[in-house]
């Protein structure tokens, strides 16, 4: 039973990783950039949600929506200001800029509101526990899982059934060819950032509700973990990010469950290094070699 309980916890945690990982993977798929600032967008989402709940007295879903919109705007803003001018620069220049943006958001937030943590009100969602076959599942965990699943389905619909989704797939396949076919590449990239960032914002609110405590540097570790999840699933592949997130969440919960909770973060990085060494294209990726 203990095992199943850990599994349930792992899936809840994993669904948060998955939501963040989706943004990483989409952005990487389209501009080949590791958007280091993505974890910080997640943090901003958590704070927007928090203020929406405490200052504006909004409920869970309106707060979620507000955080998603705010993060989408933030994502587009970052892309336009910092990344767009670097589209033809070296990968290293883009990566360094992304690290710079990440730190700017973190310490900018501390500068504006201080470093002190906040606590999400516990009354936001009804806290009931449901017992199924001896496993306790809180209604919160259930709601989080449902929200995550709905968002992921929505994303799949956007990517596969809409015009913008088609444009995104085209640009990620070959930006130059897409441009020649009349696709507005800049807008498509912005849309990708918007969608990815909105998902990260949603993950921020969900994280706050589930783990209560939020603070300005909270985005770093989940951000890195989500990136690991994206690599695990095969970066650039949307279903890969979902599976990668869930797998990583479950692995971490199992490690905690075995009593090594202090090593939890280490395990994620070991997973990363192992996957990079043995299967750098990820679980779902194809191996591609540089063209000579």
């Amino acid at each position, binding site marked *: 039973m203990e095992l199943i309980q850990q599994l349930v916890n792992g899936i809840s945690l994993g669904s948060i990783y998955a939501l963040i990982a989706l943004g990483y993977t989409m952005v990487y798929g389209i501009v080949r950039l590791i958007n280091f600032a993505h974890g910080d967008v997640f943090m901003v989402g958590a704070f927007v949600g928090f203020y929406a709940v405490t200052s504006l007295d909004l409920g869970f879903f309106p707060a979620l929506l507000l955080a998603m919109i705010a993060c989408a705007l933030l994502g587009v803003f970052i892309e336009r200001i910092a990344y767009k001018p670097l589209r033809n620069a070296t990968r290293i220049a883009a990566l360094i800029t992304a690290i*710079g943006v990440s730190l700017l958001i973190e310490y900018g937030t501390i*500068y504006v509101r201080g470093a002190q943590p906040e606590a999400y009100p516990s009354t936001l969602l009804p806290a009931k526990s449901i017992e199924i076959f001896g496993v306790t599942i809180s209604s919160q965990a259930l709601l989080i899982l449902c929200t995550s699943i709905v968002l992921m389905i929505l994303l799949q619909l956007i990517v596969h059934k809409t015009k913008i989704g088609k444009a995104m797939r085209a640009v990620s396949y070959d930006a130059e060819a897409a441009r020649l076919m009349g696709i507005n590449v800049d807008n498509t990239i912005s849309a990708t950032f918007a969608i990815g960032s909105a998902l990260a914002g949603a993950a921020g609110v969900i994280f706050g509700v589930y783990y209560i405590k939020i603070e300005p540097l909270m985005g770093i570790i989940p951000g890195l973990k989500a990136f690991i999840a994206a690599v695990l699933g095969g970066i650039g592949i949307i279903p890969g990010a979902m599976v990668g997130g869930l797998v990583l969440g479950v692995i971490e919960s199992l490690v905690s469950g075995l009593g090594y909770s202090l090593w939890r973060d280490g395990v994620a990085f070991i997973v990363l*290094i192992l996957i990079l060494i043995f299967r750098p294209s990820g679980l779902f990726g194809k191996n591609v070699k540089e063209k000579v």
Partner: protein
Amino acid sequence: MTAFKRINGFWLSIVLALVFFAVVQLLISGGMLNSFYINTLFFMAINIILAVSLHLIIGITGQFSIGHAGFLAVGAYASAIMTMKLQMPFALALLVGGVAAAVAGLLIGIPTLRLKGDYLAIATLGFGEIVRIILLNVEYVGGASGMTVTHLTTWPWVFFCLLMTIIVIANFTNSTHGRACISIREDEIAADSMGINTTYYKVTAFVIGSFFAGIAGGLYAHNFYIIQPTNFGFLKSFDILIFVVLGGLGSMSGAVIAAILLTVVSTFLQDYPETRMIIYSIVLILVMLYRPKGLLGTQELTSFFRLRRAVGGKQNDNKHTVA
């Protein structure tokens, strides 16, 4: 002839460096430098060692490693264990710190240096985090509360290590081996097809860089009274990275200048850590947007003097391999 000239230039720099050393030593023993200045000076030297060691990996060999604080940590803890737990002399502790970091560099370098660009960056970042988490969990080195270390770092040691780092890395760079590394940075596939064993040179550069980061770790640990895993997180790696990037990827003198400047800046902003980080990150973004090659690009400071001489008609630029 040229060899003779090169030796001459080499000894001239050594003599100048020794004069600088003696002057500072006199100022310190004469009590004319207060502890604040001495501390800043030590910091500067340690940062230069770190900057130059990372410069070899990123600037010369083109391998984007962002976990340099991990090697600093390995060196710091290894040397602290030597002096504090095993009562070994400081010199041996420094050496062991360097060797331990080099071994760590070898172990992490062999598997990960096959990766390119972003992936290598993430793998090295992961390595840095793993080191930190291991230190957090090992009771022998004090876990989260860290280790207390006696103050053993003195100006002669700092200076000696700094000089060795610069000489070794400059000499390595200005040789056929350094050229091999630069060719990997410029175009790995072409380097391979020119008969360069790219894996060997990537790992070698990584190990040499790690070794000196470890030496810096030994100096760093014994300049404080305590070392903790939190001193060696990603932000520390980032601090070192910014020296190299700001100075110009591929320019050793650029990395040295950036290390000096930023040490001064961060000393002044010591009491305002958030402001410091905001300034750092904005500077980093602006440099990447408007001057992505950093202050000096791949040029060396010396090449500006050489350029002027070359106008006179005679071109004998032996340092161009530093590129």
